[in-house]
């Protein structure tokens, strides 16, 4: 396949089966630096499994997964992959509910992750300023001392995006970021992700077609664990196979 140098994320021929069910079947995807890729596809197409493989939660049975053109992700665990600069937002917003919004961001903030570095960590002025800036971006400044559990569903989504920003990753994997958001929040999220994609690579999995249209990025449609169609949203949604298998007749 294509040369993997110069890519941010490189998946080639990745397959994985769970109890004989092929969740991914020779999936090949490439994401370049500072590029956004939207992934659409029906339920069970393997979108979340793909993210699990990239972040080290699941090991592929076959195929190559490379980050930044050289690091083999199939040999690393979750923490090592996160520290390389891959951040993930989960489908179901997963924040630390019993802790404050501020503490959630402080833990996510890119800092040495060692035990003793964490034990003796004291927030510097730059750290405080950075967290405040992120809080402002995700509109949670007024709720910084509230428990994450008290946030609305949409706000939790934003907090998790804020945690992604705090991690300062090179590649962001964002799973259904606008589920449970109002229309105006959805528009804002699209703006924010487009802003982020100017400097980083972003992979967005989403069902909301108008949101994907707002993103205006390259689109890949997955079905049954492999790529069905690629191109702009118009090209993909005009593809007869995509219409048949995903968009509906």
């Amino acid at each position: 396949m294509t040369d993997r140098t110069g890519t941010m994320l490189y998946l080639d021929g990745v397959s994985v089966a769970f109890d004989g069910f092929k969740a991914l079947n020779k999936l090949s995807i490439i994401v370049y630096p500072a590029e956004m890729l939207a992934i659409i596809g029906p339920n069970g197409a393997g979108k979340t499994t793909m993210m699990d493989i990239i972040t080290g939660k699941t090991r592929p049975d076959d195929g190559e997964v490379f980050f930044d053109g050289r690091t083999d992700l199939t040999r690393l665990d979750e923490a090592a992959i996160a520290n390389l600069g891959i951040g993930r937002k989960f489908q179901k917003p997963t924040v630390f509910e019993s802790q404050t919004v501020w503490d959630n961001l402080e833990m996510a903030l890119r800092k040495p992750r060692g035990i003793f570095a964490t034990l003796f960590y004291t927030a510097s002025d730059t750290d405080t300023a950075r967290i405040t800036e992120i809080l402002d971006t995700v509109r949670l400044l007024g709720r910084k001392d509230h428990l994450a559990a008290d946030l609305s569903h949409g706000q939790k989504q934003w907090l998790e995006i804020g945690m992604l920003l705090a991690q300062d990753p090179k590649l962001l994997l964002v799973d259904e970021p606008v589920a449970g958001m109002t229309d105006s929040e959805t528009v804002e999220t699209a703006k924010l992700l487009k802003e982020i994609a100017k400097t980083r690579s972003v992979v967005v999995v989403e069902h909301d077609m108008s949101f994907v249209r707002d993103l205006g990025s390259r689109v890949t449609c997955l079905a049954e664990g492999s790529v069905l169609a690629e191109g702009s949203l118009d090209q993909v949604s005009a593809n007869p196979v995509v219409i048949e298998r995903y968009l509906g007749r």
Partner: protein
Amino acid sequence: MLTQALFRALDKKAIWLVAILIAVAVLVPASNLLLPNGHPLRLPNYAVPLFGKYLTFAMLALALDLVWGYCGILSLGHGAFFAIGGYAMGMYLMRQIGNRGVYANPILPDFMVFLNWKELPWYWYGFDNFWFAMLMVMLVPALLAFVFGFLAFRSRVTGVYLSIITQAMTYALLLAFFRNDMGFGGNNGLTDFKEILGAPISADTTRAALFAASAIALALAILVCSMVVNSKLGKVMIAVRDAESRTRFLGYRVEYVKLFAFVVSAVIAGIAGALYVPQVGIINPGEFEPSNSIEVVIWTAVGGRGTIIGPIIGAILVNVGKSYFTGAFPEFWLFALGALFVVTTLFLPKGIVGLIGQYRSLTTRREQHDRSAPAAPSPAEVESSADPQPKPAE
């Protein structure tokens, strides 16, 4: 760096607790030693080691709370670290007996002479030195916790499975220490101690000093624990407890976070055990009994896990209750203990400390309500705020 961390640990509650413990460390021995016999405020002689024992139990419960309440590791074998600390202290005390034993052997403890052993096993070397023994009190539990934790956490053994293997660990140690060949006195354990640091072990002054040492050790353990839980690492520990895999995706090595908490906790438990042994005068394999470790879980749950003060209150209250009930209605105690755990799990998921917190928020809410509207709060409202947040019992 360290001073900053220490400063952070000294929040209001920790300062209060430490101050109270220092006051207790002074007042209890003073009341026993200085006041004349028959004075109404004089603590009887038997009470000093008894209260000292409660303090070591409180320390053990605090140690368990660090891993269970803050890091989500339900250890059902924490008594093992306590017992190992106790054995290390017991070995020192045995070596202090010298030729005053029944067989008057200057080197070998009585049980070894009885077993016809000719020389001291290598692992008894050095225990005639107090400081070496104190080092072992911390080092051996730490080492066991490190090896056990490393293997368990790296293999991602969690939840019930982890609880079961901690239980198996303490049970295996129980069986091992029962064997005479182990060289730890078998069934009878280590006892008949004469003196500690040259002071007769059952003298009132020694017991008062041991009590004070227990109170101060507990105060230090509180400082260490609050330093850990108030740090960013403490926040990460709570994150591991609440959403372990999410913490991994943030780039934290969850297994090391757990290992750190487990080792610190084992050291605290070991020190508690070392202070327990000279106050009760014996250490035997019974301390490894799985039921002992489960009792520690009950103290912690009753007091309120995930708080610093909760396990201390729980350990002291339950043990005062145990002392009373086992004296007054001996057959009744185990039923009371069982009922206590059932009631706590069902109605007080956050323990006594949680109950106080709920009562407080209830009264402040009522005050606010009274201020805004003079009418009494509707029953529905009171009920909803009094309703404890149901959490799945672990």
